[in-house]
């Protein structure tokens, strides 16, 4: 696996999702920015699949995701399934308040790390 970060940009119906893979092995880091919706899943899953062979853990950094809908949530659940099948640990970052709200309504807030207790934190 190349140590250099690779990036891809998937075009959506009306916005864009940026996918950057990086980190040198353990954990590998996949950074998503922009809009995680219906058209995002194939690109995100392909990026993750490319990493499951060489890493024991993958961090999916969703802090730069501005918008997520139910299709984006399904994409995250598919990522979990993919990693579980490959025996790789998947960790999500905390996410923006708006993304956290979508996880809360879905009853999946326990998937995200608790918000930073520090009031100056990014949340």
């Amino acid at each position, binding site marked *: 696996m190349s140590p250099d970060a690779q990036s891809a940009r998937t075009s959506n119906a*009306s*916005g864009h999702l940026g996918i950057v893979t990086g980190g040198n092995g353990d954990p590998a880091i996949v950074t998503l920015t922009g809009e995680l919706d219906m058209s995002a899943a194939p690109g995100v899953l392909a990026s993750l699949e490319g990493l499951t062979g060489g890493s024991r853990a993958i961090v999916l950094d969703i802090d730069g995701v501005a918008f997520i809908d139910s*299709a984006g949530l399904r994409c995250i*659940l598919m990522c979990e399934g993919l990693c579980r099948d490959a025996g790789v640990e998947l960790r999500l970052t905390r996410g923006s308040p708006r993304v956290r709200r*979508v996880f809360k*309504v879905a009853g*999946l807030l326990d998937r995200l790390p608790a918000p930073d207790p520090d009031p100056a934190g990014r949340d």
Partner: protein
Amino acid sequence: MVAAGALLVAVGVALLLSNTVELRSDSEGTTRSENYLLRVVDVERSVVDVETGLRGYVITGRPLFLQPLYGARAGLPAAERALREAAVANHAYEHGSDALIASVGRYLEGYVVPLLARSQHDLAGARSSAVTLEGKRLVDGIRDEAASLERGLSGSEAARQNAAHDATDRSITEAIVVLVVLTLLTVATGTLIGRVAVEREVAREHSDATSETLQQSLLPSCLPSIPRCELAARFIPNSGLVGGDFYDAFETPNGTWTLIIGDVSGKGAPAAALTAMARWTLRSLLESGASPVEALRVLNSTMIGQSLERRFVTVACMRLREQDGRLQVTVACAGHPPPILVPTAGAPHPVGAEGTLLGVLPAIELQPAEVELAPGDGIVAFTDGITDQGPQEGPPPEQALAGHPGHGNADSLADALQRLSEVYAGPYRDDIAILALRYVGALPRQETEPAIRADPATAVPGSGDTPASGSIPRV
């Protein structure tokens, strides 16, 4: 020169015509395959109804459960016949359909009939877990077969739609060439081109109409009249693909009524099949007396173990019970935005129900809420299309409903929420469904606003839909 130009026009027109024919045959193909999909879903649904009824009866011993069982069993031969006919029209699927029908036959003759016979004299034996697991295994097998038929269909459907898009793209390039030559040469041929364009438009509309038909089969054909309540519904298909949102309203045991609204992740034929399954599973459980929480739990365990590719369902379920001039509402939400309570006094606010989405996790948590509606109060449930069309963020739904308490009927509550989605410039990505209920109660007439249709019989649901905004009136 003129002759060469005329020849070019002729070639161009021929190309356009051939593409129009292609587009039209594509839309006929779509109609056939959607009809076929509906037949598969019908058979699958009947089997699920039989199994639900059978299990309900064997577990509880209540003959109430036998009604849906007998109904579904009586309907199966017709459903199978329709499936066979649709498969013949669609040759590619005959083999799979015959196999599905054979599995259904084995299930009925080899399992349902003997178990029913045994339950007549030995209910405890029939109930034994080995026997009921066998039923689950058979039904799972049938549903896997149905799912693989549906998947095959959605694959070929995608190929067909790609071909249609390619044909349209080619037509556009060719139309530009033709039109340039036309402008130089003759106006007369323009009439012909005009007619071709109209035919193309008709073919496209036809294709849209079949999607709409399939979508409508996922929604009730009419809303019931709930005593002393007004009910209004909206469904706005935005994504152009069938599937996704559903709602239903029906009478449940002991004088209660139940409203459900839900959203299946994903689009297209597989999502539509799951939408139909979710709606009918919930309905048959709730009509048989299951509580909202019980029904959601059963739907979750029914979905777990199916190969659903992480497809999930979110549902808000509201059971209504009138008592002493108040409407008691039990609200259970599974991964779904909580409905908004709109009291006559005070600010609208989401009810405190929350829970995990269905179909992904074996263990879910559901925290139902109990709310009480006084006469004039309303409660509005919706799908996330209201708030989640894109990165732009509108006001929260409860704010959109402020200013309506006591003044609006159910229709105007639904309108107020529908307007919220209009903060997005579009194109819209997700469907929108809204179910608004207002408890009229026994309000003295003089206290109501003149515009309120206090008589439930005249509170025609959905009658305020404005066709201009793309909603489908359902009366």
